[in-house]
């Protein structure tokens, strides 16, 4: 099925014709899917410029008379908290997570990929096992532990795991990448008397840049989107992340008193992720593709 387009055949005129209609159908199909995919994103852009009462009822994607009131309202914050506080908190969480993941997962991956130590295969199987483990089994005991340590309402429970390489997906991604580096490089370095730390820092890490970038962006986006972690561990609005702060915009009916504010906030919260995606989509998609191919 996938090889039908670029095939030279003897019956040229016919197949050329067929190819052209095929190509048209292809583009129409792809554009239709694109419209469905993009609709919710365009909807939130349009809706954030509408007055609250029109947001649900008006079918017009973009308002005839766009207003800025929703965004101006955001500047006042909510319940005496500036929305910048939420952004700062999210940035702190996501940035801290990126640093932790890059350090801890690359060290672990180096050990798996480049050091031959006793028990390596067993530990690697355990690491792969945690990839499939539902997080919810750990939720209650981890909460109990952090509660006993009086770390509830801090970022320690959210960040500690990132510094201890508990995100097996990124370890796995980096191991795959490091294994494919030419062995001669680190063997030559060994003969020259380099230790592992030196090889890790000066040879392997610089060569792993694509895998590191992929991991960094995924980590940032996951932390930015994270909802359950902050919901459970943070209970003081001043410490809320963006995803938790947004919940304050709705009232008990779910239809927020300030519906326009909620939708504008939704758009603003999406922007960092969308920008990251536009800037780094190659790294994200290639990273995603390799994780599946070599699994």
């Amino acid at each position: 099925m996938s090889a039908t387009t670029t095939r030279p055949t003897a019956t040229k005129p016919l197949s050329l014709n067929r190819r052209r209609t095929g190509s048209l159908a292809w583009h129409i199909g792809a554009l239709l899917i694109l419209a469905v995919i993009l609709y919710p994103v365009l909807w939130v852009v349009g809706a954030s410029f509408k007055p609250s009462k029109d947001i649900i009822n008006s079918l017009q994607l973009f308002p005839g008379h766009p207003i800025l009131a929703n965004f101006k309202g955001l500047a006042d914050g909510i319940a005496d908290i500036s929305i910048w506080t939420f952004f700062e908190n999210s940035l702190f969480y996501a940035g801290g997570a990126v640093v932790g993941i890059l350090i801890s997962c690359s060290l672990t991956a180096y050990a798996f990929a480049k050091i031959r130590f006793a028990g390596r295969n067993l530990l690697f199987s355990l690491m792969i096992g945690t990839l499939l483990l539902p997080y919810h089994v750990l939720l209650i005991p981890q909460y109990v532990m952090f509660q006993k340590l009086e770390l509830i309402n801090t970022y320690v429970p959210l960040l500690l795991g990132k510094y201890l390489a508990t995100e097996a997906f990124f370890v796995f991604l980096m191991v795959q990448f490091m294994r494919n580096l030419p062995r001669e490089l680190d063997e030559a370095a060994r003969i020259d008397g380099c230790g592992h730390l030196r090889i890790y820092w000066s040879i392997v890490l610089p060569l792993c840049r694509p895998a590191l970038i992929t991991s960094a962006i995924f980590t940032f986006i996951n932390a930015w989107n994270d909802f359950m972690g902050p919901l459970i561990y943070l209970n003081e609005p001043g410490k809320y992340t963006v995803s938790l702060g947004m919940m304050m915009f709705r009232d008990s009916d779910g239809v927020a008193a300030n519906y326009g504010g909620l939708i504008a906030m939704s758009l603003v919260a999406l922007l960092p992720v969308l920008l990251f995606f536009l800037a780094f989509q190659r790294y994200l998609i290639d990273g995603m593709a390799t994780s599946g191919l070599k699994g």
Partner: protein
Amino acid sequence: MTLVKDSAPATRRARSAAPAAEKRRGRRENLAGYLFMSPWIAGFLLLTAGPMVASLYFAFTDYNLFNTPKWVGLDNFTKMFDDPRWQKSVEVTAKYVVIGTPLKLLLALGVALLLAQSRRGQAFYRAAFYAPSLIGASVSVAFVWRSIFSDNAIVDRAMSAVGIHAGGWVGNPDWILYSLVALTVWQFGAPMVIFLAGLKQVPRELYEAAELDGAGAFRKFWSITLPMISPVLFFNVLLETIHSFQIFGSAYVVSNTYCGPADATLVYTCYLYQQGFKNAQMGFASAMAWMLLLAVALVTAVLFWSQKKWVHYEEDAR
């Protein structure tokens, strides 16, 4: 999954060295290995293995976070099986997984096959279709979903136009779960990217040989494409299924934190959250978590067992 392979040259070199030096080097390698691994080992013991043991213990106790856990044997499990809300949460989750995952994967495979046909525009569409997978889990998108599936909004009006008057899906217990299914299907881009990468690796010669033998498009798909991408299909089925068992955030927000109406979106983790963190039933919630683990383990085992029958691995895959 591939395990770490020892590299042949290194082994040979080590063998030819003097035994004492070899031993010393081995010990140094062990030390270096465990030093590099130390963050992971600490994390594994402190945040994974330890909590798993603790959670297994809590599952057999009555514990509200402030009392000392009291051993109650199988009480939590018998209570759980008799609990109509627990049964409901199993039913809701099963429905969500069984309907959502196949739909999402079928769409992902279909669109991947479509995109694989043309080079022109492929990169653009691939990126655009992938974007929802990045934002789909966010609270923002959950609010957007809640809006476009409410009364009198676009989905309701489109359905009314063809004669189905269901009102807003989010207010209707019969429909709200399908808005969550739609949300997961909307994120078909991630498995699609993996399918596409798999499709690219199918050798062209196979198709050419099949064409010489007069095979049609369907035959080529069934006898070449499908077996050749079966490892990728297996990976996607495994990951997406395990993933969708654990849906929480979007169900919680789309249903306005109640996981309703009428418990219609009471997915498993939502009930676990309510029991553990709203009702402080840490023992009961731990028992629930272990049932989830068992279910996921069972599904994983069945998939791994079945892969012998339908997953085709090339001899020299690496």
